[in-house]
């Protein structure tokens, strides 16, 4: 990887030299892993109409993390456990989808309140709580990097295996079920993968900014192309650029990386419709002849 050479190169200077420090190296590796994991699931989060659920799962992770701090355990572990529990709960509630938004929002608010309650008991941990809410990629430890690598590998392999079935079950659930796909099981497997990715992504962008890594890059990619593999690749690319950009800027300026990461992701999202319009007017002038009249709706 390119940053490995940067990190070990003895002749580099100034900001680049900072990369040799363990905390920046960990941040870079963790950020890269998380961007890949987010890219793998972001497309399906959109296909399955789960953006709000990612937000909710991150909030459900919050009391898990503050409770872990309270009892002296690792906040990342607490976060992961609570996120997976929350993800499964949302999947179970999803069957009565009429009430889903209300139930999810209510649970979200309760979880946030519980998180603040635990944090208030764990006095003197304000910094930890802030980093859970807003992310602190510079605080990632070497052990956490190993956990993130394991989770990212597991998620990428899982999506690589079930990607097609998951797409069928997400886009066309009626026919997928008629063709014998176990749409319930696929849903549970995906929710667990999604919750794990949310759990680790919180370390980068925090509970409050999770959308920027899990939803915004995929939404940007879908504006540009409808081809599934391209959506996954482009959204991974945007997540990588955002995370790396955040780290690079953070080495020069006293800004929090989370701010830069979310800003870059949002700039891509805002710019995407213009890029899509350019692409479309290109292809329209190419295929103008022979196109049947279309009634838009």
């Amino acid at each position: 990887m390119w940053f490995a050479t940067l990190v070990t190169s003895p002749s580099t200077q100034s900001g680049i030299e900072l990369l040799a420090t363990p905390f920046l190296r960990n941040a870079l590796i963790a950020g890269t892993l998380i961007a890949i994991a987010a890219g793998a699931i972001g497309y399906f989060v959109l296909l399955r109409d789960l953006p709000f659920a990612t937000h909710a799962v991150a909030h459900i992770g919050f009391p898990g993390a503050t409770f872990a701090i309270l009892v002296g355990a690792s906040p990342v572990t607490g976060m992961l456990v609570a996120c997976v529990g929350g993800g499964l709960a949302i999947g179970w509630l999803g069957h009565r989808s009429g009430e889903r938004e209300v139930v999810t929002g209510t649970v979200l608010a309760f979880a946030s309140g519980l998180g603040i309650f635990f944090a208030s008991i764990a006095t003197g941990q304000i910094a930890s709580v802030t980093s859970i809410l807003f992310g602190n990629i510079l605080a990632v430890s070497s052990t956490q990097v190993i956990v993130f690598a394991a989770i990212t590998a597991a998620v990428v392999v899982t999506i690589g295996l079930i990607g097609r079935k998951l797409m069928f079950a997400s886009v066309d659930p009626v026919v997928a079920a008629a063709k014998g796909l176990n749409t319930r099981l696929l849903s549970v497997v995906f929710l667990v993968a999604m919750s794990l990715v949310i759990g680790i992504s919180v370390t980068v962008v925090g509970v409050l900014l999770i959308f920027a890594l899990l939803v915004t890059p995929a939404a940007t990619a879908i504006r540009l192309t409808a081809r599934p593999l391209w959506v996954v690749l482009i959204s991974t690319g945007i997540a990588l650029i955002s995370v790396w950009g955040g780290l690079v800027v953070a080495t020069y300026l006293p800004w929090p990386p989370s701010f830069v990461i979310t800003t870059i992701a949002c700039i891509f999202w805002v710019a995407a419709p213009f890029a899509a319009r350019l692409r479309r007017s290109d292809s329209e002038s190419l295929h103008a002849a022979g196109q049947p009249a279309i009634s838009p709706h």
Partner: protein
Amino acid sequence: MATTPASGSVDGAGRKQIVTSLATAAIAMRDVAVARGGRQIWSGATLEIPRGSFTALIGPNGSGKSTLASLVLGQLQPSNGSLSVLGEVPHRGNPAIGLVPQNHALDKASAVQCRDVVALGLAGTRWGMGLRGKQVGLAVDAALEAVDGMTFGKRRFGEVSGGQQQRVSIAQALITSPEMLVLDEPLAGLDLLGQVEIVELVHHINHDRGVTVVFITHDLNPLLAHIDSVLYIHNGTPQFGTTDEVVDSDVLTELYGTPVQVTRTADGCVFTRAE
């Protein structure tokens, strides 16, 4: 490939043959009843739908037409009687049956290309990623060609017209080269020309490839020129008859519960509500 003829056959003169032998019926029911949520939907169905036939399935809203389709697809079990579909007990995921579901609106229609919707019909049940393998691509081309859909294959499903979406759904159902096609109200929401186009398309699939067709509809008129038989759910019992038997002023008047007038025309017949 979607071009392989399945059951039924086309004889030398280009006329399809309808196989009526008991063992080879496309759908055979013996005193079948079905219940949903503890409530009986219909019962007493004893009938045989021949292979290679083009059958319209009619009945009022809520009479159990879609339920009958679910039964044929193996998604529901009969609460009574015995049922065989293409000579087997119905089972989910049978590639020999293609389904075009009612209101086939996709959840994230504007995120996927029509081609991919078709490809999912073939590859969507397989492990792995990606829908652009060469073999899948050829099958998608063949299926889209069969529905005259090559011009809009690369557009997003949510951005093509209702009639074009219906063609994509039919291509998706055809891509496994099924022996039987079940279409659940594919004419809903289409204008007169759109309806005629879909009916002609299905007629060719039935006539040229020998695919058995069960076509659920509210309006029999657009189908009259092409159907061989009608399956109608009346007073809680599905019944089967040839088009000539069912499309009769007295029978339809009884069926619709309102006076119906059948008029023979050159290319079939029409029926209207009598004054």
